[in-house]
């Protein structure tokens, strides 16, 4: 899954740790999501989308190649 989490986090000038605090997850989890190594659960994906004021499909894109 491709995502724009890093891009939006940097736009808000938040560190991974700060974003993790807002989402109530660890910095490592934020890093894993940003690098595409971990696909978040649906509730967490919605939480991220809500935090950035985006629709979920604008944030996450299904990528056939990475499956």
């Amino acid at each position, binding site marked *: 899954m491709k995502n724009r989490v890093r891009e939006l986090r940097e736009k808000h000038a938040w560190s991974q740790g700060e974003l993790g605090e807002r989402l109530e*997850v*660890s910095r*490592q*989890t934020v*890093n*894993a999501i940003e690098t595409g*190594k*971990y696909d978040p659960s649906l509730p*967490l994906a919605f939480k991220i989308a809500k935090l950035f004021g985006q629709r979920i499909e604008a944030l996450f894109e299904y990528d056939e190649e990475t499956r």
Partner: protein
Amino acid sequence: MVRLSRQAHQRRVMVAMAIYVAVFLWVWPLARSADALWLKSTYALAPVPPVVYVIWLMARRVLGGDELEQRTHLIGLGVAAGAVSVYGIVSGFLAAAHVFGADWSAAALVWIFPLLVVVYASARAYAARRYGGGACDEGMPTAVRFLYVAGLLTVAAAYIYWHKGDAESAGFAAGMAAGMLGGALFFALRQRLRRPDE
């Protein structure tokens, strides 16, 4: 449930381990000379509370983790359960066939929990690395943790050697201490090579 920081978690585990070693060395041997059954049982089970405390800390850590952390814990516990099952069935068959002595069977049971912890920690670290290598790299460096265990085992080996004269047990503890020291050197060197600018 209040989430403990990794440092606080590690500190508590280390204190519990030190208490476990102390109780195992100074209290548990009294079980062999105690006459009353209740006293014998109390001495024999004295090392159990620190172990139960560590299990409770582990459960607390898992329950307080986020979804990715819980996934890596689950992978670690799954691999550890598999390893302990294989160990259990192998040692069970060997014991049932009287391949080794009766003392060996009891010792095999005592090693179940340490085996579970080591395999769980290794598998979890491996799983965490697959997700970016971050989930296990906070808190106390791995080299320091290995050094701590090496120190505990050295104390145990020295105590057994000078107070009981049991060369075989002392040698076993000293050998494990040397292994842990080797592990500490390996992880210290690896960390140094990974971050040459620090």
